[in-house]
């Protein structure tokens, strides 16, 4: 009875949520929630790389782009291919994973900060290619991107542009990625990832082949990105290089860091918070208009500014994130005097 309540009540809430939101705030907000779910998937993927394995990937959005463009190329009038989504989606995840390995293999033996800058460059390169591969053969559609992408279709039933249908589809994939992440975290591989994050030399001395295990983290994270990319393409019906810039990577990183690196629930919380909260900033423009008669601060740059500030402040004051992992919490309640130490020094020891 208790377990029933534990699962049935959240499930029921999640099922009626989009309709409640529609009734209260309108359809636009259901769409915002759909996007929030996509970001949850992306953040969970990046969490494997940054949160578990401790590798800073600043070009994560490139894998998102790979998944999205693959979907767009294989299911749109662009090449006249209309492959079904259950085939294209795993293909996108696989291709993104492959890119992850290609990028990781030569660079993962280097120190973490080099990896950060190489991934940063990789993200830009992918965008430059997407922007320019429209001549001499039109592959990516150039800056205009690819339009009229097939919506997701299950058997005879097309999702069309129903925000509700995509809500449930995305919810399913969010649960799937959260499930996989949790399973991985509490496994031999997951422990090896965290061990590398904590102390790479000690991890290697325990017989962990750090290079392979890091590559695995990179590939897993990338394929989650590819998966979300495919879903994004089907949902939007349109992809262009614009959607895959550095700021997107930074935003996803922000979600992981703010929520709590390595803590799955924290990361989900961070992703929802950062994808819903900026929407509220939209009201900052009209508010200024009505109070001062003109717009002083552009809401979209205010959003990025706050993200930058959040990254700095969280690292300085709460390096474990807003929602630290339960092991730490258990410790906090068990031993009061360690609490202060916990908050200031979470990643400190062993260096």
């Amino acid at each position: 009875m208790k377990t029933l309540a534990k699962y049935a009540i959240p499930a029921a809430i999640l099922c009626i949520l989009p309709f409640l939101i529609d009734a209260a705030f309108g359809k636009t907000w259901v769409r915002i929630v759909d996007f929030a779910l996509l970001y949850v998937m992306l953040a969970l993927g990046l969490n494997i790389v940054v949160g578990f394995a401790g590798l800073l990937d600043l070009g994560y959005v490139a894998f998102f782009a790979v998944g999205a463009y693959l979907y767009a190329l294989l299911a749109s009038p662009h090449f006249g291919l209309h492959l079904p989504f259950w085939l294209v989606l795993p293909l996108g995840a696989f291709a993104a994973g492959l890119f992850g390995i290609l990028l990781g293999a030569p660079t993962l033996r280097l120190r973490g900060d080099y990896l950060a800058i190489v991934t940063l460059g990789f993200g830009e390169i992918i965008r430059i290619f997407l922007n320019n591969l429209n001549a001499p053969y039109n592959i990516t559609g150039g800056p205009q991107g690819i339009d009229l992408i097939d919506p997701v279709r299950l058997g005879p039933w097309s999702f069309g542009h129903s925000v509700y249908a995509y809500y449930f589809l995305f919810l399913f994939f969010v649960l799937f990625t959260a499930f996989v992440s949790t399973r991985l975290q509490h496994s031999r591989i997951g422990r090896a990832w965290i061990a590398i994050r904590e102390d790479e030399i000690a991890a290697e001395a325990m017989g962990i082949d750090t290079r392979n295990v890091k590559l695995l983290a990179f590939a897993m994270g990338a394929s989650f990105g590819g998966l979300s990319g495919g879903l994004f393409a089907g949902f939007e019906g349109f992809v262009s290089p614009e959607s895959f810039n550095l700021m997107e990577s930074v935003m996803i990183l922000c979600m992981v860091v703010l929520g709590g690196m390595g803590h799955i629930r924290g990361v989900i919380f961070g992703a929802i918070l950062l994808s819903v909260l900026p929407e509220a900033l939209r009201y900052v423009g009209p508010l200024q208009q009505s109070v001062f008669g003109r717009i002083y601060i552009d809401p979209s740059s205010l959003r990025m500014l706050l993200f930058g500030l959040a990254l700095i402040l969280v690292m300085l004051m709460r390096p474990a994130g807003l929602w630290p992992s339960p092991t730490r919490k258990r410790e906090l309640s068990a031993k009061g005097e360690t609490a202060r130490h916990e908050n200031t020094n979470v990643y400190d020891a062993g260096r």
Partner: protein
Amino acid sequence: MEIFLQQLVNGIVLGSIYSLVALGYTLVYGIMGLINFAHGDVVMIGAMVTLTVIRLLSGSGLPGPLVVLCGLGAAIPFCMMTGYLMERIAYRPLRNAPRLAPLITAIGVSILLQNVAMLIWGREYLSFPQLLPAHAFPFLGASISFIQILIVAGSGIMMACLSILIRKTRLGNAMRAASQNAEVATLMGVEVNSVISITFMLGSALAAVAGMMVSAYYGIAHYDMGFLLGLKAFTAAVLGGIGNMEGAMLGGLLLGIIESMGAGYLGTLTNGAMGSNYQDVFAFFVLILVLIFRPSGLLGERVGERP
């Protein structure tokens, strides 16, 4: 042959700017082992402040070059202040934290600087007024403009001054000691904290000059100009061997030449399939190749994870 010479000239000019910015990365890395992601954005701040002062003075009737100098005179201290605050607030508290932490704050600082700049100076491209003589000199079939000469000479002088500072002065000694071993340097009475602050300020001063040069050369400035420039300058520093000053200068020049040769010849080589719109890709491939085949760079030490 003319194309070759012209691209060589352009490459050297571009390269001297890269060298200046790369020095900022290398100085900080040498002492703290930190890649200061926000360094490229300090270059942008330098360009923006220079332009702001120039615009204020452009109606005053002062001669053009003097106006530019005034702009630079304002930009250098402003950038030094930015560099100082950045280190004090965002990096110093994390000096003993794991590597990931200062990297993440560095990204944060970069985003913050870009967006503050966007709030202050807007999203539009700002143009650099025609204040410096525009005529060009023919040279073996290529042409060299006055600004190009100014850039190469200016960065040459800056780098020479920096070399003397680091090799011949007490401060330079302290900096070298701190980069060898901060703990021992502390025991020897070196104020490591102030050495680090000064290093950030020196790098930022070079960045301010580079910012003025870039905006004068291309005639424009933009709030996100620092990102790509920073990435390339970092590549230059790695190419030369990060932490190594001569390496940064050499790497900058080489990267500038590689890029401009690539941009000049890629179209012909690929039969028009790829053109100069791929110019920005070269730096990245250079970076990957260096990291794979010679991670220590041309003049540097190893950068692998081994202790």
